[in-house]
């Protein structure tokens, strides 16, 4: 952290972003999702104010910020999980491949198949490992035969780096696995429906350091195959796994840019205070 501090004298910091409200396309790669002027309200309370972020295919995008800054709320807008909260209201434009995901004709079932999600606490279903993975393909009708389904299950588990550990006990309950394995099972479950984007909401906060390292390694491997957005309260983790970082504070997007720049040369005072540990 002291290293970071040394290199962040205000005079040197280049302007990476123009304003917090403007559309920010942070760097290269094909655009996957765009968000423009998104506001989220919980009843009367505004939880997200005017956030615009682009998610690219080739980069892992991290959302960081202190607790209650709205990063998870914003993440849940991207696959409309906020729909499950009756008092939540989302305004602004959010697109996936140019399609407005909040448009009336958008089918939320299809959307969530395309934008998968991994939660803070591993939440495997109380079913067998096999059935956990097969859950999505079954409800979306992705496999026409048993062989095909077996194939999807195997590929998904392989991609999530879990195949070797569970291939002999696919019929065991998913809840019997260790915490880290459960989380990788949940990632495999998300992968099984072949999504375009994977949202991860603090996926390692309930895991020990070794399991965390495995998940981070997995994120590296999955990068490029899926657009990945990860929410984390762990700044080192954001620095390790992401190429783009967005810093949220009190429901606003303070700064969004290339991860290394955010951590070495933050434009905004608040960002610098946060990453140097002055608050949060």
């Amino acid at each position: 952290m002291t290293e970071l501090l040394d290199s962040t004298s205000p005079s040197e910091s280049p302007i990476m972003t123009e304003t917090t409200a403007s559309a920010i396309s942070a760097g290269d790669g094909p655009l996957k999702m765009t968000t423009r002027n998104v506001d989220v309200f919980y009843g009367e309370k505004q939880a997200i104010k005017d956030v615009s972020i682009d998610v690219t295919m080739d980069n892992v995008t991290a959302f960081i910020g202190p607790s209650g800054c709205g990063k998870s709320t914003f993440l849940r807008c991207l696959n409309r999980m906020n729909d499950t909260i009756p008092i939540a209201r989302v305004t602004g434009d959010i697109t996936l491949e140019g399609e407005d995901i909040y448009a009336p004709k958008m089918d939320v079932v299809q959307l969530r198949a395309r934008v998968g999600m991994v939660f803070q606490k591993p939440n495997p279903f109380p079913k067998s490992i096999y059935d956990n993975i097969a859950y999505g393909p079954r409800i979306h009708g992705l496999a026409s035969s048993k062989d095909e389904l077996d194939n999807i299950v195997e590929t998904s588990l392989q991609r999530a780096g879990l195949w070797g550990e569970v291939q002999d006990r696919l019929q065991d309950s998913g809840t019997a696995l260790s915490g880290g394995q459960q989380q990788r099972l949940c990632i495999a479950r998300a992968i099984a429906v072949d999504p375009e984007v994977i949202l991860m909401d603090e996926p390692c906060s309930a895991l020990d350091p070794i399991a965390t390292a495995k998940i981070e390694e997995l994120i590296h491997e999955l990068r490029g195959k899926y657009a990945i957005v990860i929410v984390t309260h762990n700044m080192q983790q954001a620095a390790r796994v992401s190429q783009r970082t967005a810093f949220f504070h009190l429901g606003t997007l303070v700064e969004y840019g290339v991860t290394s720049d955010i951590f070495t040369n933050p434009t905004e005072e608040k960002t610098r205070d946060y990453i140097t540990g002055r608050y949060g």
Partner: protein
Amino acid sequence: MTGSILFMLIIVLGGIAWFFGRVKASRFSADNKKRGAVHSLPNYHGWYVALWAIGPALLFLMIWNMASPALITDAALTSPAAEQLPQDPFARGAILAEARSIASGQQVQAFNPLSQSMVEPYRTAISYYRTLGMVAALLLVFACGAFGWLKLKPELRARTKIERVTMLLLLFASLIATITTIGIFVSLIFESARFFSMVSPIDFLFGTEWNPKAVAGPRGETGFGAIPLFWGTVFIGAIIAMIVAIPLGLMSAIYLTQYAPPNFRAWMKPILEVLAGVPTVVYGYFAALTVAPALRDFAVSIGISGASSESALAAGVVMGIMIIPFVSSMADDSIAAVPSAMRDGSLAMGATKSETIKKVLIPAALPGVVGGVLLAVSRAIGETMIVVMAAGLAANMTANPFSSVTTVTTQIVKLLTGDQEFDSPKTLAAFALGLVLFIVTLLLNLIALRVVKKYREAYE
């Protein structure tokens, strides 16, 4: 002096003992200012003395009240009047009982002149033993109170001892329910054993003819084959009632937990629970006067033969409605106990709400739901009022829901209503039926509780 005055006197003396104990303890507390020199607060010392004063005396009175009737009778029998008593134990016992109730003032006039002659010896004996017990109890209060008071000293661990007495008192309170259950079970077993000494258990449990007679028929048949009763009970309580209650209860629970807006749920759930509080007799006449005739007319109109105005279907359907709140509230609890992460996980996979309910919530909540259903079944087969009023008395072995069947509880009521001798197999059969019912519901409850408990552990 009557028993209640004596009891109050002992309590008052206990209060005085408390006061003396406290005064003594306050005095030595004042003398020993050093921290820890006096183990307990004066209050505990007071209670210590009070308990010593009251406890042994009350215990003695309890034992005395149980033992003294025998002593009184023995004393009365030593009187000269006792020599005229008949030797036949039955007549003798009746006379003694009468004399005793006159002597203790429960009866005014003797029916038998011999009893009248025994009244005086009884009266003497009663007052003698009563005075003796009273004096002994009061002596015990003073002696034990003084003993407790003398034991008070700064290092006495009065607080620890009071804690232990409190614990024992609470233990005693909790044992009462358990002991009652065991007592009921034991008495059922004894009465049933008497029944089974007259009727073979095999005839009872596997016989198919229920037509209880006090005396065996020409071929030794007694008509105590309970299979039609068991069938009727299962048919109404476990089949028809559950066909009504399980889907309705489960679906209402799903609606209330997953779909209902919070304010709708807020008034809908209490109303559903009120259903459980309606007295069963109200359901009973609802079944007998409204549902049963309607069903009979319906059955006749579609040409079903054997339709009776007391039908298994009427009783079963109404019982099912009565059971809905049980199933629904257990299912509601178990569905609500499924972590919301599970639901979110499924929704995030793109599952719809009903897919999530069907594939994730219900399987996860299933053990709790099964437990609720088992409890509901055990409630249903023990239910009496509805079946007495709506199911009928004819012991039919039929699967036709429109005909009349009878249940175990109905027959128990029938066997025990009116004047009955308590040693005829007809009456004792009620105990045997009760025993079977008790064992079955007990097993159902045990299994249900175990299932529910196991399920709770899975999410904690």
